[in-house]
């Protein structure tokens, strides 16, 4: 099932000045899109606008040719799932109960719980590797497990589009990679269109099919990471003086911040040096 999600001349704000103004943006169907940018650049605001959490102050978000504002909340929720930045849950809630609440848009006032709900919950638990936690209270789990359970709740919602607002915050590097792998699996297996706001530029470059770089509410660059991310773009987006090399493991662009300390001159630009064992300008320093 293909979907077209786009913002047309979209302006978003929280009552005062617009955080995002007159933006035209399209989410590529069936791909993983990452939105990156400095703090307060409007990336989370854009995500919230696309999930209908914010009413646009101008323009519109269009899903399959219809404005989101004209659709019923429940119909939007059957197509677009969203995992907010810091979701909250009651103290004693169990994993199975929380994931089950993802079925809300598929239930009615009286027709409450059916076998297809049961199947969706079980599938979501298994896909996220949390099936054996089903009976445990959420509060007892580790940060990584908890985040996977929240993803499971969003999966149980069974939407073709899934939006996540900084899902890796508070996770250690191992769990960050694990979570992004899991989302990639989902994208590849189910064809779910995924949009992620991510802080870590290097992980964004590695996992994104499509990257959107924002600054002060406008899009500075978008496209595949290899086309888009170079030192001048990173400097423009983050104001960071840096070098961009290609990650030897994946070939994705990788940002090396310059900073003011510990620099030993030279560096790689786009391609690794002929002799990767030695770093130019740093005698005695070897990679390996």
């Amino acid at each position, binding site marked *: 099932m293909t979907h077209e999600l786009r913002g047309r001349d979209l302006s978003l704000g929280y009552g005062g000045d617009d955080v995002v103004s007159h933006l035209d943006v399209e989410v590529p169907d069936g791909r993983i899109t990452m939105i990156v940018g400095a703090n307060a650049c409007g990336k989370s605001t854009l995500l919230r606008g696309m999930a209908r959490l914010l009413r646009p102050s101008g323009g519109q978000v269009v899903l399959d040719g219809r404005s989101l504002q004209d659709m019923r909340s*429940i119909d939007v929720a059957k197509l677009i*799932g969203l995992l907010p930045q810091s979701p909250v849950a009651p103290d004693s809630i169990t994993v199975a109960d929380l994931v089950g609440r993802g079925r809300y848009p598929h239930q009615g*006032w009286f027709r409450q719980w059916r076998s297809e709900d049961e199947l969706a919950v079980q599938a979501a638990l298994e896909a996220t590797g*949390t099936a054996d936690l089903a009976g445990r209270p959420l509060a007892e789990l580790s940060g990584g497990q908890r985040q996977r359970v929240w993803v499971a709740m969003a999966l149980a919602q069974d939407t073709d589009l899934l939006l996540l607002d900084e899902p890796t915050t508070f996770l250690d590097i191992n769990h960050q990679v694990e979570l992004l792998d899991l989302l990639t699996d989902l994208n590849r297996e189910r064809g779910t269109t995924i949009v992620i706001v991510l802080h870590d530029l290097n992980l964004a470059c590695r*996992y994104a099919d499509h990257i959107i770089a924002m600054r002060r509410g406008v899009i500075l660059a978008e496209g595949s990471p290899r086309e888009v991310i170079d030192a001048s773009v990173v400097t423009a987006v983050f104001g960071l003086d840096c070098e961009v090399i290609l990650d030897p493991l994946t070939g994705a662009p990788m940002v090396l911040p310059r900073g003011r300390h510990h620099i030993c001159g030279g560096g790689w630009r786009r391609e690794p040096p002929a002799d990767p064992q030695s770093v130019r300008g740093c005698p005695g320093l070897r990679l390996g």
Partner: protein
Amino acid sequence: MSTQTLSPPPQAPPVGTRAADVRRARRRLGLLVTTGLGLLALALLVLTMMVGSYGLTPWEVVASLAHQSQDPATDFIVRGLRLPVAATGLAAGIALGVSGAIFQKLLNNPLASPDFVGVSSGASLAAVASIVLFNASSVAISGSALIGALVSATLVYVLAFRGGLSGYRFILVGIGVSELMLSLVGYIVARAELFEARQAMTWLVGSVGQAGPGQLWALIVALVVLLPVAILLERPLRSLELGDDTARALGTRVELHRLALIAVSVVLIAFATAAVGPVLFVALVAGPLARRLLGPAGGHVLAAGFVGASLLLSSDLIAANAFSSPLPTGLVTGAVGAPYLVWLLVTANRQGLGG
């Protein structure tokens, strides 16, 4: 770490922990506990009608209720004297428990009881004003208490609303409004004649016995209409509990459902307060007690109603019979509830919850 192979779940789920089994076990537990609490409330209802200056057996009470009793004296005691009081206790207790549980879940705070956030104090101010200033009849007192509760709840809602409703703001504004109203109550009582001041103070403590038939029927009608609504609204409530963003993403109409839940809860507490006065702590304690009994099981609202009814009936049983002369119910609930409140504050602060 490769992105092209699928990562299988780390372990196969052990037998018995499948989500379906967990859910079924929770349902069963919820049903069991709620039924048990309902039966407890009914048992206390019958017990309330057995005990008094003239003791009766359960069979005499039940026979008289079923119109099977041959003894007119028993009928008079049960149906004429004790049933109205007991039924008021049951209905007001359910209303208080349901109302408190909804408030606490909605605002995600165990202190968010209607006792504290201005609803009861609005009722008190209106009732005391009508007693002292207008010398009103019992029905008029209840009517003004009802209006006072609704007006003060609306006031708190409007003052706390700022492009949305934050639970924390609602509670703080509620406490402020509540204090304002209680100081006005103090002012009116201080200026009143002795007889009216006594009448006002009695009303302010709250007692199950003070409701007349008009108040009782109004409360029963409110309960019959609103209890099913409250149970239906528990589904969006479970989604609202996950925070506004998640609730919206799940397709909940957040503002509409929250307004409906607050309205149901306020109207229930308003009718209960109009009937029995501002009986303290029942609404505060019922929700957390029910949650403790249920564990992680659902179906919280109805269970909290039954806990509220059991609390109010047993408090009235003690107030009416344990002392040489009957006391107002509110004194007993206050004596039990105040230590609970202290305990709640102490433990809540330790966990950094509950504000």
